[in-house]
């Protein structure tokens, strides 16, 4: 196993970079981070639309959320893979495809986190802001969202863990992220599939476990802060 690590650690971490495109674990982390950052504004908009007082906005978004949550991410990726080129007019790479699919999928899930966050803020807050004469949107922006978003931080870290796990599906469309690179290594070595895939699993584990511990710690700290404030 040590020999395996010695021979392939660099390939595992960054793929063919710097001679070729970035790959491996670095690509996994990059893809997950970009997807989360880009899906935040989308999730915020969708989440607000989901609870907005205007039906014309609330109903279609609610329907969209139910549809996307009802189909597997893999299918979203396939839709993106075959229809992005039709939409944009030129060939899109695996990275773009994966990013678009993840942003849509995560945006939908974040919308539910945002909704839960906003609904956790006591109703009196919105009523007070409205009776002070603030229009709905400014009340949301200046009173409700700052409180709601603070509650959401642990959920966001957990969402990041999910996103990292989701990037592994890039393997299926041939994106050179860490699972794909591990399979390539397995193909080169041939005789050590157990060790290669064990190391792949451990890599994901170390990354995701430390992040979910961080989320747990954030949650505990927040509970303490809230208790102290009460």
């Amino acid at each position, binding site marked *: 196993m040590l020999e395996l690590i010695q021979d392939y650690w660099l390939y595992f971490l960054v793929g063919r970079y710097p001679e070729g495109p970035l790959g491996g674990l670095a690509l996994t982390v990059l893809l997950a981070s970009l997807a989360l950052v880009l899906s935040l504004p989308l999730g915020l908009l969708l989440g607000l639309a989901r609870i907005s007082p205007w039906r014309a906005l609330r109903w279609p978004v609610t329907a969209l959320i139910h549809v996307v949550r009802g*189909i597997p991410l893999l299918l979203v990726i396939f839709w993106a893979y075959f229809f992005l080129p039709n939409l944009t007019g030129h060939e899109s790479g695996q990275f773009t495809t994966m990013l678009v699919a993840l942003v849509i999928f995560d945006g939908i899930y974040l919308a539910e986190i945002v909704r839960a966050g906003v609904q956790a803020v006591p109703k009196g807050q919105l009523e007070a802001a409205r009776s002070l004469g603030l229009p709905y949107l400014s009340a949301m922006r200046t009173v409700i969202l700052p409180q709601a978003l603070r509650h959401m931080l642990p959920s966001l870290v957990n969402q990041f*863990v999910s996103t990292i796990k989701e990037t592994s599906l890039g393997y*299926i469309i041939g994106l050179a992220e860490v699972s794909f690179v591990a399979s390539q290594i397995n193909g080169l070595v041939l005789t050590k*599939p157990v060790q290669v895939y064990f190391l*792949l699993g451990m890599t994901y584990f170390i990354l995701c476990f430390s992040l979910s511990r961080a989320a747990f710690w954030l949650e505990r700290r927040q509970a303490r802060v809230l208790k102290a404030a009460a």
Partner: protein
Amino acid sequence: MLQFDLHLLLSGDYHDWLLSGLLLSLQLMAITLLLSLPLACGVAMLRLAPSRFLNALGATYVELIRNVPLLAHFLFWYFGAPELLPQAWKERLYAGNIEAISAIVALTLYTAAYMAEDIRSGIRAIPAQQFEAGRALGFSFLQTMRLCILPQALRLSLPPLLSQTLNLWQNTSIATVIGVAELMYQTQRVETASFRSVEAFAFASVAYLTVSLLISGLAALLQRRAA
């Protein structure tokens, strides 16, 4: 874009492929569900057992499984694990349906880790006196769990368990990576053979969506009846 050819989905080879894929996906879900529920109960009890060692064992299982993507589980159980078996078993396995077996093992272990957590919170919601009363009547830990705590706890954890079933349903799609001929695999196959992407993906989307909605409908129904 070409016209949407509904006929393609209603009869002929492509229709048969897609339908057999859907059936296999449903079978995968059903078998995994049957196997993972008892395993999940076992793991949940490990986490609550009166022994530090057993608690740690349960926690390690849950964390180890949940922090690794399902795709990596599939790769390990398909490409890696069979190599560890003795030669005779290996031959028998490769002669049979190794894809489906690996997929079921991976899905069961993965789903059980999530369900164990739901069952555990169900058990913790049962007042401690119930447990104490069981013990005071002379039942052992396992008997108290089986006869008194679990029947109540499982009823409480039904809604989260159904939402795990929903995840399981969607997760069966990932089995396509190891070549299990489930719905996703057959969708890709139809797509490659006919270049009819829209029809193939539409069928898959509607199929996945319908089963998902049935499961969440069931959850909503149960919730309303419990309330």
